[in-house]
């Protein structure tokens, strides 16, 4: 009988040490069908969803990007940008807060037309396709934006 709780404790500690690290999974897994809202022409239409689900969806897009690769996206949020100290490139982001506005998730986007980027903190709506690009040794994920509207 003494062995049972020791075995229980061993199982619990072993399972606690067996989890995979929480990093963005870059694998060849087939895409899951995650189309949201069959009434819209976009695969992922976050415009009319509540803030918590939008935040969680964007979080999942950054953590499991292969699941969403190639999907059309409509999303709105706040525009932000950052200039890199390493290569002088400017990166453009759409920032999505949760309902309480205490947690935020950003996703990079690139305008594929010649439109200018707006001022920082402008509310924007983006329509595009979720893709990836290689920069140095790393792969990055972004929305290849065909249409941007300032709200």
């Amino acid at each position, binding site marked *: 009988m003494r062995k049972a709780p020791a075995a229980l404790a061993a199982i619990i500690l072993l*399972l606690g040490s067996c989890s995979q690290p929480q990093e963005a999974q870059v694998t060849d897994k087939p895409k899951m069908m995650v189309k949201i809202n069959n009434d819209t022409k976009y695969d992922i239409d976050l415009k009319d969803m509540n803030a*918590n689900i939008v935040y969680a969806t964007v979080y999942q897009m950054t953590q499991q990007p292969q699941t969403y690769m190639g999907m059309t996206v409509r999303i709105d949020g706040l525009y932000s940008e950052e200039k890199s100290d390493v290569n002088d490139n400017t990166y453009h982001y759409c920032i999505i807060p949760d309902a309480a506005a205490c947690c935020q998730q950003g996703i990079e986007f690139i305008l594929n037309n010649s439109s200018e980027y707006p001022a920082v903190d402008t509310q924007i709506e983006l329509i595009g396709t979720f893709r990836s690009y290689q920069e140095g040794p790393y792969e990055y994920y972004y929305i290849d934006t065909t249409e941007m509207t300032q709200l």
Partner: protein
Amino acid sequence: MTLFDYLQQPFVFNAVLVGILIALCSGLLGVPLVLKRFSFIGDGLSHIAFFAATIATTLRLTQELYIVLPATVISAVLLLRTSSSTKVKGDASLAMISVGTLAGGYVVMNMFPKGGNVSADVCSTLFGSTSILTLSESDVILSVVLSIVVVIAFVFFYNKIFAVTFDDVFARGTGVKANLYNLIIATITAVVITLAMNLVGSLLITALIIFPALSSMRVFKCFKSVTICTVIVSVLGAFAGLVISIMLATPVGSTIVVVDAGIFFIFLIFSLLRKKVKT
């Protein structure tokens, strides 16, 4: 969008699945803890887990459970074994550890922030605002497996847990290895607390543990009936809270606790009316 549309999303489905399992485990755990007068153990252990999580983050560990789970298990064993021979009595030691580790965790979080938004980390960890909706695949699998282990342990050791819950001294006198079963309860407590932090956050775990048990005790008097009712109330409360928070964009943890509190008041009113009818 309807609830069915939201449930089509894997992360929403995972949140509901893990939320229900955590509620099931905390319901089973709540009855012995409330009866043993350890209602606030959840608070103390969750603050220890919070402190351990901040240490794990500072050390850049990829999986925080490497530190959180062992630290919480050891703390649970030490706290639940508090006896008359200690200089600092049960509730005082719990209070001391609870506030000390909460403050310590917040200091560590500010000195070594994970990202630029410390408020977000605090909000998410302490109140569980959207943690349950951002679980990784490994988190889901681990939660499911640990929940199954907890349920099996509770079912397997049910009679002994019943004995040490109601009368520890009598249980020892009849040959029950009370220290052993108290250790099992402590381990289960630590596991459930660690899992429940994802659902309701560190500050609200106590509500998840005690509200369903207290609700059931208003209506039922038999240990088995109380336990079964507690599990049902806990699962229904967590499910309703999750659904409401998904549909209305409210913080998940707080919504679940508000629903549990509402259920408690309904049971309380029912018990008062039943008493009045009998008299």
